[in-house]
């Protein structure tokens, strides 16, 4: 065995069991949305896309914010701490990208039967697309910056810039005239019925739980790949 002094070996377990358990719980939540809750007065059955679209959008917002929070810590930390926060920011921004893409695609599928179009250059849709492209840009810059310290710095700054777009996406339906409906939930006032609200909250919680398990696994994967690269270099 080649023992590399000062290097921490990667974790032994990727965290498969929590991913499977939370995926099963999420499927249960989708089942409630598809088969348990009643149809909508205006949209009939097609509104059921809500239970995957809204949790995806919220997950995108939360993971981009989480990525920016870790990015702030990268800029303030040194050495191993900076690497650890950078791994967290990297995994968070990947999830932000994934969920922004999912929100766009499910929104587009919902738009076709309700608005008659797959896409419109509406403020909410356009700002979400910008968020997705900024997330992609952050990941690409990370990929194309080989020097670790420069990579951490560039990724941290672009992650922070990306997070600035999240409030713009959220408030876009209030700030500009939009084809998109206003927020389903605003403080102390919901536009959805009680059972729809309940199932939506359950699905938001389950999607966030599932994404948390993905985050843990991915962060371990990134740390393992970095440990391997460092060990190869030191050996």
């Amino acid at each position, binding site marked *: *065995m*080649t*023992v*590399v*002094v*000062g*290097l*921490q*070996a*990667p*974790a*032994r377990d*990727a965290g*498969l069991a929590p*991913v499977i358990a939370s*995926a099963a719980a*999420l499927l249960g939540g*989708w089942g409630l949305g*598809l088969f348990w809750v009643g149809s909508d007065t*205006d*949209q*009939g*059955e*097609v509104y*059921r*896309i809500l239970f*995957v*679209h809204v949790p*995806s959008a919220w997950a995108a917002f939360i993971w981009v914010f989480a990525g920016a929070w870790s990015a702030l810590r990268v800029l303030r930390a040194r050495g191993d701490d900076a690497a650890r926060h950078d791994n967290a920011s990297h995994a968070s921004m*990947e*999830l932000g990208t*994934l969920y922004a*893409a*999912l929100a766009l*695609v*499910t929104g587009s*599928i*919902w738009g*076709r*039967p*309700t608005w*008659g179009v797959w896409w419109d250059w509406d403020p909410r849709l356009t700002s979400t697309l910008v968020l997705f492209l900024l997330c992609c840009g952050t990941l690409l810059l990370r990929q194309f910056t080989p020097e670790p310290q420069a990579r951490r710095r560039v990724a941290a700054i672009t992650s922070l810039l990306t997070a600035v777009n999240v409030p713009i996406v959220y408030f876009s339906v209030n700030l500009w005239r939009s084809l998109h409906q206003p927020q389903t939930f605003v403080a102390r006032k919901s536009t959805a019925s009680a059972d729809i609200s309940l199932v939506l909250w359950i699905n938001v919680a389950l999607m966030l739980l*599932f994404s948390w398990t*993905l985050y843990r*696994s*991915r962060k*371990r*994967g*990134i740390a*393992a*790949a970095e*440990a*391997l690269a460092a*060990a*190869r270099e030191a*050996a």
Partner: protein
Amino acid sequence: MTPEGFGNAGWINYVSAAYVVAALFLGSYAAFALRSFTLARKAWDDEGFGSEAERE
């Protein structure tokens, strides 16, 4: 309003498409996350790297 819109005809195609796409996106990312860890860990073991922590 479109023919396949509020009248519900064909709704199941849109709803099922959204859920299938979501399952594919999330499932693919989960597979990628788990596989990237497994490959790195396997290479670490195969190449015989240890660490002070593991030696203890």
